[in-house]
């Protein structure tokens, strides 16, 4: 009884919408979908999304590891406060994130001269912000569970800091880093609200894949919107599969 209830709920909530979009997008076969995705404006949007997602992943991996390491290994006043800050991007509305960029860099903004607002740079900035916690939160528990003695021993024996990190710390945290990286990529690929406000959504310049979908709906180009939506959906299914493989690998390793 309970099983049936839960399966029915999950089916209606999760599976029915997916079926609906797959059905609708391929109603005239696969050709219209391919035509839409390969059109110049769609390609342009996809390229921007890819560039921003990859840059975000690179920045957040490096900075995420650094932040996690400092928060776990160092003691300093205000550490608890700083630690609490890390989760903030998860609860700040993307629209507010975009709004902050406009206040800081927009017309009559605090740093107007930097001309960042309404450029891809602004979109990169907000995407880095919204996905900042993923790597940090995946890596921190692993670092915490890892005794500092090994690290200290290597360091005391004369290994340089970087060498210590590369040979001792990184191999241990690697699965967590990869998992955080996958989550970061997924979030970065789908970011809409913050990128739309901060970038302004100018076609051909600051229009990413999600903004392309939004514009297509307004232009009554439904096939365009569904085609891109199904592509992003397919990517997220891939992400989901990768996430689960990683989880299983991690579970096996810890056994």
């Amino acid at each position, binding site marked *: 009884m*309970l*099983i049936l*209830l*839960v*399966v029915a*709920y*999950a089916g209606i*909530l*999760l599976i*029915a*919408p*997916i079926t*609906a*979009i797959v059905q609708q997008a391929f109603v005239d076969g696969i050709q219209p979908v391919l035509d839409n995705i390969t059109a110049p404006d769609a390609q342009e949007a996809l390229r921007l999304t890819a560039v921003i997602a990859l840059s975000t992943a690179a920045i957040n991996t490096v*900075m995420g590891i650094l*932040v996690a390491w*400092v*928060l776990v290994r160092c*003691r*300093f006043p205000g550490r608890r406060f*700083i630690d*609490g*800050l890390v*989760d*903030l*991007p998860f*609860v*700040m*509305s*993307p*629209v*507010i994130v975009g*709004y*902050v960029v*406009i*206040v800081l860099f927009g017309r009559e903004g605090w740093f107007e001269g930097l001309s960042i607002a309404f450029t891809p740079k602004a979109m990169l900035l907000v995407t*880095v*912000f919204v996905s*900042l916690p993923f790597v940090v939160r995946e890596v921190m528990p692993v670092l915490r569970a890892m005794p*500092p003695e090994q*690290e*200290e021993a290597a*360091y005391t024996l004369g290994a340089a800091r970087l060498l210590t990190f590369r040979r001792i710390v990184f191999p241990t945290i690697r699965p967590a880093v990869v998992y955080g990286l996958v989550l970061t990529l997924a979030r970065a*690929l*789908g*970011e*809409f*609200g913050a990128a739309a*406000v901060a970038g302004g959504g100018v076609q051909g310049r600051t229009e990413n894949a*999600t903004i392309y*979908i939004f514009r297509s*709906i307004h232009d009554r180009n439904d096939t365009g919107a569904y085609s891109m*939506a199904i592509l*992003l959906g397919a990517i*997220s299914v891939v*992400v*989901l*599969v990768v*996430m*689960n493989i990683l989880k299983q690998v991690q579970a096996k390793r810890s056994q």
Partner: protein
Amino acid sequence: MPGVAHGKRAIVNASRPRLDLSGWGLRGTAILYLLVMIALPVFVVFSSGLQAGLSEFWDNINHPQAVSALRVTLITATIMTVINVVMGTLTAYVLVTYRFPGKNLLDVLIDLPFAIPTLVTGIMLVLLYGPQTALAGFLQEKFDMRVLYARPGIVLALLFICYPFVIRAVQPVLVQLDQRQPEAAYTLGASGWYTFRRIVFPAIRPAMLTGGMLGFARALGEFGAIVIVAGNIPLRTQTAPVYIYGKVEAGDMAAASAVSVVLLAVALVVTLSVDWMQRANQHG
């Protein structure tokens, strides 16, 4: 024995400071990065929202559209959270307790809302419940209920997006729960429901609460899915993030900033409470 406890802590601390001394550059970089990237935006929201003075802030908040937008956001997020806590706990319970065909697939599928862009979620819901679909016609005719461009649509979108929160909070607690306790109760003649209420429920209550609250905080800020399913009708289906978006696009930064302050403040209070409750549980 406070002395013993103190001694232990001293040993733990003694093994750490050496790394600290040479870590100043890295530590400074990390702290500065977090302050600029995260503390600064929060500061910007509150200072720009309040810089024109409290009375103007008050006027902007009391604008009928702003009040309504905040109310729609709070109401839909609350309804979603209640349903989500019940159904999420039930899902986690079923996933941990029973074996059935398709269980692994369901377990994998639960994370889908974390992976799928919320704008795509919105489009999927429009296609499923949109005006021309059979399902929408059926609901309209039988129950006189409109899903799309109405509040049920917002709740539905939020339910999709926040489904994993409660499940992923409750599941590990259920897995770790000593299976002998409920089994003993059951053997001793307690009914399944009674066992759940007296043995299982007290153990998972904190996780239900924190999972629900994190979902609630997440729901407050949702934009991509709602802007598609809600239709942006002022005073009826316009949520706070959609209101802010409209005001920023129109260049009315004062109106946008006031609602941003309230929305962010509520989200902050909720997350800080979760953080506080989790600490209290760890120590208690």
